[in-house]
């Protein structure tokens, strides 16, 4: 019974915590520009993230280590230095885009420019991390994040054609126009779906929650169903944008435009639901990102770490997330368009995926750590293929998007 409850809660928190600025921005833009044409990209990213999240949980359970900690011990600090530096830099950009999106939600509600919200939002974020326990951070924000299910309800209310959705999800198509932008959005969606912070956070969470081998099955069920249902929300954002914004000719270049997408389904509630979804999902993601980055820093340098520890018992860990939030706040204060920042962060995430994923895959096949629970060949092949394909496509798509070639 206790296990069933744990599974249920795990799935619910995975669903509520799935959507973030990356998913909302990339999916809204994809749906408005290409209709259902990029649903397959969410499906591709989801297959990969299911494998990665399951692996990160299994690794923590069997080895008793987090991923970063084990990479440092197995390959030494020099091997970890480059992936660590790059991951931190990208995490910083992604955190700035999450913070920026929360601030934009407040701008949309109040009319006060988003930069003015940067400091109050950052303080709220920091304060919650300072005083709350891991369970409050993980489950509290994810439960509130269930508001994002409104996108799924909107799909039904707007009467999307299931057969058409299924076809677009399973069969990738290439548009005749704007291929560079299509490719850029495809890799951004994959980057948003396979966010490395997600599985780094998950493995640290498994250690924080002291998972033992009895959690192997719950881990598999939570990773599969949680990510699958979570991805359904991302897909719903694409579908809603395709049904409401694309026919009008609205291209989502800014959250002001995306905010209109739920109104045809819910009237005045549509606007409020969009703001709540954006603010809660991105605030939750900002909490997880700050923690994931502090975990990575602490585990790389061998510091004390743990959200459940009092800040004075994990001082450097607490300083790490404090500094991280401070720098991200400066990026928001600089006034960069949060949606543009999000899209580029997601595309860059796709580029660096091999750096984060490959050392992890090596560990997943190392019997010293994994004993009889090493990866199957199938899961290795699937993850390597998707990650490398995404990275190569991102390397092509980013310059094309930046220099405006069609």
């Amino acid at each position, binding site marked *: 019974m206790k296990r069933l409850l744990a599974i249920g809660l795990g799935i619910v928190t995975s669903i509520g915590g799935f959507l973030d600025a990356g998913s909302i921005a990339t999916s809204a833009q994809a749906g408005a520009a290409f209709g259902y044409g990029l649903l397959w990209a969410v499906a591709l990213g989801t297959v990969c993230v299911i494998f990665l999240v399951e692996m990160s949980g299994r690794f923590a359970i069997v080895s008793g280590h987090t991923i970063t900690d084990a990479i440092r011990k197995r390959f030494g600090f020099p091997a970890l230095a480059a992936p660590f530096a790059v991951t931190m830099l990208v995490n910083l950009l992604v955190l700035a885009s999450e913070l920026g999106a929360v601030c934009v939600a407040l*701008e*949309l*509600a*109040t*009319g*006060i420019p988003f930069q003015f919200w940067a400091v109050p939002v950052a303080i709220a974020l920091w304060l919650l991390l300072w005083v709350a326990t891991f369970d409050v951070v993980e489950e509290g924000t994810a439960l509130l994040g269930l508001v994002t299910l409104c996108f799924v309800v909107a799909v039904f*209310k*707007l009467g999307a054609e299931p057969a058409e959705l299924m076809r677009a999800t399973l069969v990738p198509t290439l548009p005749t126009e704007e291929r560079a932008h299509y490719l850029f959005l495809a890799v951004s969606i994959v980057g948003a779906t396979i966010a490395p912070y997600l599985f780094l956070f998950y493995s640290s969470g498994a250690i924080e929650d002291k998972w033992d081998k009895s959690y192997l099955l719950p881990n598999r069920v939570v990773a599969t169903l949680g990510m699958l249902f979570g991805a359904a929300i991302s897909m719903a954002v694409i579908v809603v944008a395709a049904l*409401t914004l694309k*026919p*009008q*000719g*609205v*291209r989502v*270049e*800014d959250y*002001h*435009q995306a*905010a*209109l997408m739920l*109104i*045809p*389904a819910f*009237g*005045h509630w*549509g*606007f409020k639901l969009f703001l709540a979804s954006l603010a809660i999902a991105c605030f939750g993601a900002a909490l997880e990102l700050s923690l994931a980055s502090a975990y990575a820093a602490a585990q790389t340098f061998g510091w004390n770490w743990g959200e459940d520890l009092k800040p004075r018992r994990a001082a450097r860990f607490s300083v790490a997330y404090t500094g991280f939030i401070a720098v991200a706040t400066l990026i928001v204060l600089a006034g960069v368009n949060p949606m543009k920042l999000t899209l580029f962060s997601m595309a860059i995430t796709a580029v660096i995926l091999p750096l984060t994923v490959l050392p992890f895959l090596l560990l997943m096949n190392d019997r010293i750590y994994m004993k009889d629970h090493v990866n199957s060949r199938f899961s290795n092949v699937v993850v390597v293929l998707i990650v490398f394909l995404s990275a190569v496509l991102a390397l092509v798509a980013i310059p094309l998007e930046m220099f*405006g070639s*069609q």
Partner: protein
Amino acid sequence: MLSTDYDANSHAGMRLAALVVLLALAGCGDQRAAELESANSWSVTAVLAARHWLRGEVPSAYARRTLKRAAEELAKGPLPGAAQPVEELRAAIERRDRAEVRALLSELAGG
């Protein structure tokens, strides 16, 4: 009901968008086409935001900010003249002059 409302909603937006496109019919390249599409998108956004404001579906603060943003984007785009009607809509919303907003939207729809 939903789609009909939304079709009507976008009517004025389509007119304004058509105006934007017509104004720029003289030959243009890929870059220009992308800029025009963006201008079209912002003009439709402005009209939708004003329509939703009239129906009480979005707050005034949102409508004002969105129309301001739309006017800025249109002003720096290929057809800065398209920013003018959007700016007028924003000013009418600022004054909470519903009749004026309605009149401006019908003017655009009839235009």
